[in-house]
């Protein structure tokens, strides 16, 4: 069973130093994510979700503890190796899409392949296919500022998946998107997850997102508190009145 884990952290701790003050962000996090999972990290802001995501994605280093992603011990990697790891194994999706404004949708999706030194024709082919799978093939040559938030995020999803990463990390991917589009985005991610068996870890404080994921854990004060059941999420949604909006 251990072989089927894509992410495994042990006693993962992260402390930020702000001058002389130490601010703990993560505290002894033990997380196991099986391959092909669609996991939601749910929790209030400041609970350490994003920090955990950044460490799993090789953007930040833990203060102590271990983190192994797709068989790679991230604590042993240095600058260029981490960049290579992000390039080959990780796809990032951000709250504010972070598309490059001067590039078209197609060029944005091609960009990770430029760094992976994929040939131009192959790049074009894969980028078009990827944009088709997020239903953006009608807007290949539009710049980000000509696209709606939901459309931009679909392009960003295509960009995250185009290098066939083993894990896709999304940080509040729906926070800037209206409810109708949240539904569509989550559906696209569910489809991609089931088709490609790529693992998704989604950080959110939106219960609708949590509901769309196969599994959710709640984080609080830098630790994973527990797993949330589908029933709990459904009840919480009803209690918040969120479901009436769509």
């Amino acid at each position, binding site marked *: 069973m251990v072989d089927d884990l894509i992410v495994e952290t042990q006693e993962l701790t992260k402390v930020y130093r702000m001058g002389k003050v130490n601010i703990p962000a993560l505290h002894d996090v033990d997380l196991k994510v099986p391959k092909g999972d669609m996991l939601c990290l749910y929790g209030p802001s400041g609970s350490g979700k994003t920090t955990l995501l950044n460490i799993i994605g090789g953007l930040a280093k833990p203060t102590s503890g271990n983190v192994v992603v797709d068989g790679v011990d991230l604590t042993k990697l240095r600058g260029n190796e981490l960049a290579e790891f992000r390039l080959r194994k990780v796809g990032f999706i951000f709250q504010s899409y972070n598309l490059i*404004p001067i590039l078209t949708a197609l060029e944005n999706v091609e960009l990770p392949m430029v760094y992976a030194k994929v040939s131009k024709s192959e790049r074009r082919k894969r980028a078009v296919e990827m944009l088709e799978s997020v239903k953006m093939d009608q807007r290949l040559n539009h710049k980000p500022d000509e696209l709606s938030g939901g459309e931009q995020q679909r392009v960003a999803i295509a960009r995250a998946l185009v290098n066939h990463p083993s894990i896709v990390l999304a940080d509040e991917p729906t926070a800037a998107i209206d409810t109708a589009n949240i539904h569509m985005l989550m559906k696209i991610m569910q489809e991609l997850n089931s088709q490609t068996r790529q693992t998704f870890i989604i950080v959110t404080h939106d219960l609708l997102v949590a509901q769309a994921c196969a599994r959710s854990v709640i984080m609080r004060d830098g630790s994973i508190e527990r797993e949330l059941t589908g029933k709990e999420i459904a009840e919480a949604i009803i209690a918040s009145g969120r479901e009436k909006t769509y």
Partner: protein
Amino acid sequence: MDNVSSVASLAFRNLRRRKLRTGLTLLGIVVGVSLMVALFAIGEGMNTQISQQFKALGGADIQIYNSTEAARRIGFIGDPMSEALVAEVQAIPGVDLATGVLSGLGEVHVVGVPVQWVNKNQTVIMGIDPESYNRITGGVNIIEGRALQPSDVYGAVIGATLANETGVTVGSTLYTMEWGGAKGSPAINFVVVGICRTGQTQLDRAMFVQLSQAQHILQWKRIRAGTYVATAPQITQILVKLKDPSQAQAVSGRIEEKLSGMTGIRVFVATQMLQRMQQGISTLVLFLEGIGSVAIVAGCIGIVNTMMMSIFERTREIGTLKAIGAKPRDILITILTEAAFLGLLAGAIGCAVGGVGTLLWGELSTSSARAGFESFTSIKPIITPVILLEGFGLGVLVGVLAGLYPAWRASRLDPVEALRHGG
């Protein structure tokens, strides 16, 4: 190659998104580069002019003039002195060969051209002894026909500018008047045997004839109205070739001693004078280039500033690029490419502006020389491919150097911090 073109296109579009700022930054370097191109061209022009002047001095190791004025008009018309001095100089130990030259202004007419006053009192008539003159100076640079020979009693070699202006070619006949064209003086016909281009404004408008003919044309005195006689044979310049050029100083001393009885005789050692002039020009050019460098440095700081601002604004984009797998080196190359692009553009525009401006100035100074003003001191700047290449290279170099620090900063940004930036 695929990736190179992607990086280049990204850099180019990044510059385009802030057109005004890019334009202003460009302007800074364009000023510097065009200034440098102009200065290089002026330096080149000065050096060429000097070496041409040196050529016009004709490789003569020593020149002798009459008149202190002549010092300012090297190679050209001085006051006359007796032709007998040539033999005296020739006899001085260390002198290999001496030749007399008579130069003066005279009228030259073209046969068959109805308007006769082609160059009234404007043409330099150079009387030379072809054999010794050619031996000492190596001869003028003939571009058509042949050099003047001792047998060409009524032959002439004319400068290319004069040929162009009068439409005269090899075989054409020119004539001048004896006795300076005074009333009743007979004409002397000359057949053009060759056309020369010396690169020196005055000589390119000159007519070279036998020394004895020049003496007929230029040297006369009026006895009474309508009656003129030739003066004793005179010359304006003696060119001396030495057996050993390194002995120039010693021999010139002996010449001065020998001619000490005569007032106004000046002896110049050409190589020394040339060296002094070249030194003066090098210093001047160096000084001008120093000023140009200040402009370049200012332009450089402009690029650094632009790139730093641009990177600051794009912090989150850079974070994104890092997140999707760009290595520090990829970021470095992207930013450096942008800076290099700026330098490339500035280099090209600077070369164009500097080149065109310099050529225009050159035209102006040439036309003023044609009008007879300052023809000795006006400098015609010369643009060579090497100068353009240097200017262009300077632009690119400045771009890359100025881009180094901003690019390094960008490549070292912490991705998490960068992603959090501005949002």
